[in-house]
């Protein structure tokens, strides 16, 4: 659906994007992550047509993305609206700018506000809304015209835990029929929503993390043992740098080299430790991300 090829962007004599290549499939939900200054927001601004770019191309369905503005919904990092407008007026304004009939927008507004958790707030002025409420209104304007591609820049940054939870549910519903690109640096928020993460650093895509796959850490072994007797003896073993007690029957062995499970069982048996289950430690997304970013 989206193909970005060798995209370059310079801002104030500084190269922000240095040959971005990526693709996003139809109905895929992709997270865009990277440390601050990686170029995520610039990439998003190029994709939405806010910024032009020097080299490369961004294509949607094989056509320049500029021709698909009607198909894109966008929520910026800093959400604000005309303070004097009511929620209703704001949505009417953006709906009409998207080429929708006034009557159609008016009909959609109550459902839309309910969907983003602002039901009954249609006559509230923007200046009366909290930061979180403005964020929700931002989402409402982004999905108002049923876009095929939804681009969200830090959508949960100013939401409280309840708001985040509601937003996650909304994303889950939207991803059934919409392609979503979410820029974030809080992986906890999008962990369950995104199918894949694109990692950016210094204006380049440095890798992908498939959130459906399990990421194992072969330098850490999780053991469930019958009892903790003789466990301390493992500390004497040269392969094990540390032994962590996680629960009355669970320990985590760490080393500086990758373990072979067979050898770990042998070492335990040698110390008369009865192993019930054994497996490599699963890394969470944040760990995988930090490792990828710090490696390059």
């Amino acid at each position, binding site marked *: 659906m989206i193909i970005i090829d060798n995209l370059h962007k310079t801002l104030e004599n500084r190269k922000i994007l240095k040959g971005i290549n990526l693709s996003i499939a139809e109905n895929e939900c992709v997270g865009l992550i990277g440390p601050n200054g990686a170029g995520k927001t610039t990439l998003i601004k190029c994709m939405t047509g806010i910024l032009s770019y020097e080299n490369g191309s961004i294509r949607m369905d094989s056509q320049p993305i500029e021709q698909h503005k009607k198909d894109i919904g966008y929520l910026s990092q800093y959400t604000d609206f005309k303070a004097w407008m009511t929620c209703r007026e704001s949505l009417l*304004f953006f709906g009409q700018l998207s080429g929708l009939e006034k009557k159609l927008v008016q009909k959609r507004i109550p459902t839309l506000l309910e969907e983003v958790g602002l039901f009954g707030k249609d006559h509230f002025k923007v200046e009366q809304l909290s930061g979180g409420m403005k964020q929700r209104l*931002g989402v409402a304007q982004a999905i108002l015209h049923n876009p095929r591609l939804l681009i969200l820049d830090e959508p949960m940054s100013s939401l409280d835990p309840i708001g985040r939870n509601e937003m996650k549910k909304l994303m889950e519903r939207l991803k059934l029929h919409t392609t979503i690109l979410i820029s974030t640096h809080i992986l906890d928020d999008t962990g369950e929503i995104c199918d894949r993460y694109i990692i950016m650093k210094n204006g380049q895509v440095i890798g992908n993390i498939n959130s459906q796959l399990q990421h194992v850490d072969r330098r850490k072994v999780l053991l469930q043992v019958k009892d903790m007797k003789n466990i301390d003896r493992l500390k004497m073993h040269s392969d094990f740098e540390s032994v962590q007690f996680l629960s009355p029957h669970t320990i985590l062995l760490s080393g500086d080299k990758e373990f072979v499970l067979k050898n770990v069982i042998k070492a335990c048996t040698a110390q008369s430790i009865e192993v019930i289950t054994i497996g490599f430690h699963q890394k969470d997304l944040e760990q995988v991300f930090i490792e990828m970013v710090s490696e390059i």
Partner: protein
Amino acid sequence: MNNLFILVRAELAEALKEYKFIWLTLFFSTLGVTQPLINKYMDVILNHIGDTAGIVIDPNRQVPNATDVFLSTISGQFNQIGLIILIISFMGLIATDRNSGMQDFILTRPVSLYSYLYSKLIGHWLISMFSISVGVLVSYLYTVYLFGTFSFLKLLGFLVLYSLWILYLISLVILISTFVKNQILIAILTITFAFFWIFTKNFSHALSQIVPAKILTLAEHQLLDLHELNYVSVFICLMLTVLNISWAGAKFNKF
């Protein structure tokens, strides 16, 4: 075209909600009555505030006619204090949208950059011309009441040409806003450029032919019986306005 209309309507609605229409109109109306009042009651004012020993009022001095008074209202009040306040009221026309993220929301819609820029130009031109026109009308009525009549048609001719100068000024604010983000600096730079053009038109005859402020001379000539309509000045003013917006558009993409 439809989007341009929607955006202009939003600009006008904003000016209404923020009472800009009211305070700007009141301001220009006040300016409009100040000069005729000063001219009419100068003797009284001087008698009250001056030390009689130091002020000698020439009893044979020429009494200004209605056109002279009105011209001094325009060149003295509207083109100096009025211009400064007008520019200050416009200084955030792009910067506010940019800082709030509203600009991003608008430009990600199927709205062309030029629709957005021209909506700012047209919207603020309509707001200013409404306020200025009311101020000019109030000034005209006061001047006619105190100093005698002059042609209303001449006044309309003046207003049409003066509105082109205002159009140019707004385009200048838009252009400077694409280079500078600080609102105060935008205002200072625009005021400096505006006064520079006004100064240049009086300073050099050759240069005055191509400066946008020449349109002011042309507007003033409509009030005097100099039936000069220099189409070159009209064309240059309009062309520079379009050029400013085009330049702003080209620069905009590079932000």
